[in-house]
């Protein structure tokens, strides 16, 4: 009985865990084993299916949009120069 439950926990994951693995997998940080567990849940859980679909769509949209933003160092430089200018104005 205990063995069965162990096997079940070993293979089956909760919805929250599935969402977490799905998030990690969007950044290439999910392990193969985690992906297998996610896929197993994906087969029968409609919440997981919906989340995976939405999450993949978001990743794809960001990828094709090629959005860019300032690096931390670039932002700091900008803040420094802007603050100087702001002080000169005051």
């Amino acid at each position: 009985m205990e063995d069965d439950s162990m096997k079940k926990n070993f293979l089956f994951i909760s919805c929250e865990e599935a969402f977490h693995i799905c998030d990690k997998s969007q950044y290439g940080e999910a392990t193969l084993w985690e992906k297998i567990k996610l896929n197993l849940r994906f087969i029968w859980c409609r919440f997981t299916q919906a989340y995976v679909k939405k999450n993949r769509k978001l990743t794809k949209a960001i990828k094709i949009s090629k959005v860019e933003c300032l690096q931390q160092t670039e932002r700091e430089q900008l803040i420094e120069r802007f603050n100087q200018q702001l002080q000169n104005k005051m």
Partner: protein
Amino acid sequence: MPDHQLNPNKWIDLYSDYLFNYTITRVNDREIAKDLIQETFFAGLKSMKNFKGEASERTWLISILKRKIIDYYRKINSNKGKAEVRMSYISDDQEGDWLEERVEDEGYLNAEESMENTELGDAIYNCMSKLSDKQATVFKMKTILGYETETICNELDITASNLWVILHRARIQMAECLEKKWF
């Protein structure tokens, strides 16, 4: 009482990334984009007294930036003109693979696609502006800048599990927002 007011102390936090993305999609050069948004902020400071409060702060800054981008293209226009003259070297009696040489360039063919990407980029930035500061920072660092989890955790002094919780909430909000605005 004007509808909108200026708060330059928050300009960089609120608008620098949006303006940067707006610029880089139009000038295709990171250094030039940085210079142009810096000039935009400086020009905004100088002309604060001209702000009537009819448009939002971001719209007003974008209108300044648009002029800066036009000025930039005007400045380089003379050089570009020379390049165009040098490019049109094929005379009618010239033999060879003239069809291939005169075929429309890929950039032209993809103009519509590129415009769509620009609009999608704007939608993404609009949705990001609705995230909390922490969510937006983590989302940007991880998703757009592609930083490692460890780097973000060290930089923001948070644990990895904390990062994934923040990221999860940010992704749900972003997906819902883009669902309404874009998909």
